[in-house]
């Protein structure tokens, strides 16, 4: 049963809370834009949608590692270069991300762990530390959900400030951090005391959601790791490679795929320029092309395996966590419907 | 005196050679389309009807909007679909964007150098950057109208129809409206350059063909107005015939056996009473009278149309914005698999016809404005040469004047060219 502190928020008070928060924070939330639900900045709390049943097209990672981002700008004057760092902008912004689901919260933990290595990536880490996360529990599952298998949902373990569980006409708010705690105590009119049954209600809700989910039978993650290591050279990968279109959609849509490209853009005068980073995909041939023309993952199966092995093996070596959060987005968008759960089952069964 | 050949007439759409042959009293001008073969009528055969709009818009990069819209309307007619008024209004808007863009390219990039005696519009970058920027602003506006309605200025992506109900966002519409209002004076300014220009006066045009209009200058629907009366498009089709000249890759058309003219001038000649607003005021201010028999007036007609169309766009947008919801459902009856649409392209009357069978095209016929003008171009150019000779112009000067005259028709050879000289395709297509 949940150990964290709980409060109750009646649903009609949610907008009031967000309204108050918006005085201090820029609010981001799933929002309806031309028929699609996407994560975006909202100007007015009325844009927060009550519709919790569809999730945004791109995962929340785009708010931390944007599809395209200017790292710095420069100006070339005579024989000198004046660099202006864009990091200040990141550091200054206080953000509150509302409506993040458990899988996306788990993905942020993975990104945090990964981008803190070495010197750290100040853009991603900066945004992570400037952002308050208000999560929300799923009321239903998508056919592709399997966060239970990856142990990342439907209830997140950590990585949030507040997490709301939708129960009838109120939310049970789980306090996940000191910052969350402060919000609750500053807004006592909104955060009411929880009932003693509320912890049980969460438990039941989790059980209900899990029972709806089509996830492979849960195994110990080390077992999974070993199974993957053993399967690297098995033939079935070729079968998947035959189906894969190398379109790269799965990378862009995955909450934990972070690979990127960096290049310079410059105006025609060759005076003002900027260094830009954009998402890249390990499914593209160009991903490993070096100057001599060599391409190290020329076979489609080697590229497909790169993505899958990164999730279940390399990531464990690197940051001690598998980096799949069981959201199922990759196969939801896959034109070839290559179902990761299928691959996992194959790997586990030999 | 001999033969003068203008090879690849500069500053027109597509490749056209003009040959002037002077043998004593006998003067002949030949309009020789040289565009390679791009036989759209042929390649459409066997295609799904849904592929047609994407393919035919590629007939011409300047008037891709109207080709797309016309093909959609012809196919709708084959399928028994009648588009709603709102759909037609949206299509008219896109078409207007296309017309203004095309007229601006014609007037400023093609004709203005003739007026100023320079070789290219871009020489003005240093001399008159202000003018260039004004023209570009209005052209940008025209393009943004097309983009808002159909996604891209060249080879538009969608045509408002029942299947892809695509509506521009309100944001975009307001931005366009604002820009329409903000640029009114600029539009007037740049149009006046042509309205006040002195053009040669050769009253030789006679046969004007365009859509007949009722309350505004029709671009997409209606009967066809000719000097022999107003008639249904089908009846018009029966009275025109295509001639295949061995020197040209485009057919030449005759109506009742005679050359005729389509284009801005025909539209205004046939519908002058409907010209309203600032365009009408301008016509008065510059003492322009329609009908006019001089082809050079086609340039002034286009200048007036730019003003007229942009005001019309503002009016349509305003009207649509007032509605809570647009009606995008079309009426569908049983079609008889034959579809025809007659519209006004920037350069004049455009007719697409399609015969379908099981959803596939079994024959297509696309009659473009320029093809209809070619005989007229030849006829009037010959007479102009004679007049110039009588006034003792030398060949160099004659050549320049003929270029100017041909250009004033705003010919578009990309659309018109259809077959190769050496094979019999032309003969087969136009028996």
């Amino acid at each position, binding site marked *: 049963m949940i150990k964290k502190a709980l409060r109750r928020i009646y649903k009609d008070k949610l907008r009031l809370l967000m309204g108050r928060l918006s005085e201090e924070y820029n609010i981001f939330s799933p929002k309806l834009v031309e028929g*699609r639900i996407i994560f975006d900045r909202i100007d007015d709390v009325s844009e927060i949608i009550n519709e919790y049943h569809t999730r945004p*097209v791109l995962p929340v990672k785009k708010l931390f590692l944007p*599809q395209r981002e200017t790292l710095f700008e420069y100006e070339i004057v005579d024989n000198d270069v004046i660099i202006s760092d864009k990091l200040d902008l990141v550091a200054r912004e206080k953000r509150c991300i509302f409506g993040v689901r458990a899988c996306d919260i788990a993905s942020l933990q993975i990104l945090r762990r990964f981008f803190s290595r070495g010197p750290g990536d100040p853009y991603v880490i900066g945004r992570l530390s400037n952002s308050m996360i208000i999560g929300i529990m799923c009321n239903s599952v998508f056919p592709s959900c399997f966060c239970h298998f990856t142990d990342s949902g439907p209830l997140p373990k950590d990585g949030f400030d507040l997490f709301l569980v939708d129960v009838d006409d109120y939310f049970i708010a789980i306090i996940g951090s000191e910052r969350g705690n402060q919000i609750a105590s500053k807004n006592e009119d909104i955060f009411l005391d929880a009932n003693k049954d509320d912890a049980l209600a969460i438990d039941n809700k989790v059980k209900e959601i899990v029972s709806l989910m089509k996830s492979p039978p849960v195994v110990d993650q080390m077992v999974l790791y070993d199974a993957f290591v053993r399967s690297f050279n098995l033939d079935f990968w070729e079968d998947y490679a*035959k*189906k*894969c*279109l*190398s*379109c*790269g*959609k799965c*990378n*862009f849509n995955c909450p934990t795929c972070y690979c990127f490209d960096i290049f310079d853009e*410059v105006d*025609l*005068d060759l005076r003002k320029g900027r260094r830009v980073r954009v998402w890249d995909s390990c499914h*593209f*041939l*160009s991903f490993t092309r070096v100057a001599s023309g060599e391409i190290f993952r020329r076979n489609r199966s080697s590229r497909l395996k790169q993505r899958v092995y990164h999730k279940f093996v390399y990531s464990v070596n690197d940051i001690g966590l598998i980096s799949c959060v069981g959201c199922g987005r990759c196969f939801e*968008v896959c*034109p*070839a*419907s290559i179902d990761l759960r299928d691959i996992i089952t194959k790997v586990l069964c030999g | 005196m001999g033969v003068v050949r203008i090879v*690849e007439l*500069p*500053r*027109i759409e*597509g*490749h056209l050679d003009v040959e002037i042959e002077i043998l004593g009293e006998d003067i002949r001008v030949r309009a020789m389309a040289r565009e*390679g*073969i*791009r*036989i759209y009528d*042929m*390649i459409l055969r066997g295609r799904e009807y849904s*592929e047609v709009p*994407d*393919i035919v818009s*590629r007939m011409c*990069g*300047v008037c*891709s909007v109207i080709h797309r819209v016309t093909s959609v309307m012809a196919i709708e007619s084959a399928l028994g679909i009648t588009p709603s008024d709102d759909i037609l209004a949206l299509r008219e808007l896109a078409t207007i964007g296309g017309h203004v863009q095309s007229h601006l*390219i014609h007037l400023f*990039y093609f004709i203005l150098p003739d007026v100023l005696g320079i*070789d290219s519009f871009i020489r003005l970058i240093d001399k008159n950057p202000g003018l260039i*920027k004004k023209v*570009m*602003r209005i*052209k*940008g506006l025209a*393009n943004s109208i097309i983009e808002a309605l*159909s996604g*891209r*200025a*060249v*080879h538009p*992506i969608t045509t408002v129809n029942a299947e*892809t109900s695509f509506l521009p966002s309100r944001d975009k519409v307001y931005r366009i409206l604002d820009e329409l209002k903000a640029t009114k004076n600029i539009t007037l300014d740049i149009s006046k350059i042509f309205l006040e220009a002195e053009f040669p006066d050769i009253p030789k045009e006679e046969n004007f063909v365009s859509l007949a209009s009722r309350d505004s200058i029709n671009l997409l629907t209606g009967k066809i107005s000719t000097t022999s009366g107003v008639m249904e498009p089908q009846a018009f089709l029966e009275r025109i015939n295509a001639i295949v000249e061995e020197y040209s890759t485009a057919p030449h058309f005759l109506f009742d056996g005679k050359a005729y003219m389509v284009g801005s001038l025909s539209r205004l000649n046939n519908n002058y009473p409907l010209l309203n607003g600032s365009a009408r005021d301008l016509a008065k201010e510059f003492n322009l009278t329609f009908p006019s028999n001089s082809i050079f007036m086609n340039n002034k007609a286009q200048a007036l149309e730019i003003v007229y169309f942009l005001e019309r766009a503002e009016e349509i947008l305003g009207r649509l914005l007032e509605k809570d919801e647009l009606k995008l459902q079309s009426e569908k009856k049983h079609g008889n698999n034959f579809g025809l649409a007659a519209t006004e392209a920037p350069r004049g009357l455009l007719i697409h016809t399609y015969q379908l069978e099981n959803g596939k095209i079994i024959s297509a016929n696309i009659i473009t404005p320029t093809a209809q003008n070619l005989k007229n171009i030849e006829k009037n150019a010959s007479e102009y040469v004679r007049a110039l000779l009588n006034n003792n112009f030398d060949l160099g000067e004659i050549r320049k004047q003929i270029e100017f005259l041909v250009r004033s028709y705003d010919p578009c050879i*990309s659309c018109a060219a259809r077959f*190769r000289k050496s094979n019999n395709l032309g003969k087969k297509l136009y028996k």
Partner: protein
Amino acid sequence: MHKLKVGIYSLSSCEGCIVQILNLEERLLEVLNHVDLVECRVLGLKHDDEVDVAFVEGFVSSDEEATKIKEIRGRSRILIALGDCAYSGMRFVAKDFGTSTIRADPINMYVNVDYHLRGCPIDSEEFLSLISDLIHGKKFKESSKTVCSECILLENKCLLDKGFLCLGPITRGGCNAICIANNKGCFGCRGLGDDVNISAFIESLKSKGISIPSYLLGLLKGPGYGSSQNS
């Protein structure tokens, strides 16, 4: 700095790529600050001499045009094929164009082409980045993305999932999935992407119940049908 001498030429085409360039409006003026446009029939510019960069739109449909493209190549340092006509003979737009009695040869059948700008029409942003690379002496690299992946970056809803044909998964990106953003399936005007998997694509269409146009099967036929030429 020496300004690049640039010529724009057209063979059999709709001249839409040139219009797309003219449509850059003020940004075109900026480009013209940095290059010398010396030749362009549509703009009334004649040169008949050597140029640094020749942009050629249109395909070859006659011996005359074959001679013309060779003549242009002979006096240009860098030659760029503009649009699907020049790149493939318009095969990616009209699908079976050129395979029947109609001659529609891509220009690289006659001359060496240094770079291609794909699409019908060309994408103006891509044109600008090519120009910028030329001015700065960089090698132009075309997009290695697929249209499908560009589409998801825009967070569009997938048209295949709605049951419409869309060639995004096998088409080379660079257009920012403009068609899908306008609610219409990609029809592949930019040609095939790197290492595309057409047979798998056909299978996936089947499983979605989308009818398979015959030209897709045609795409499976020969090698060299639109594979990357920019390398």
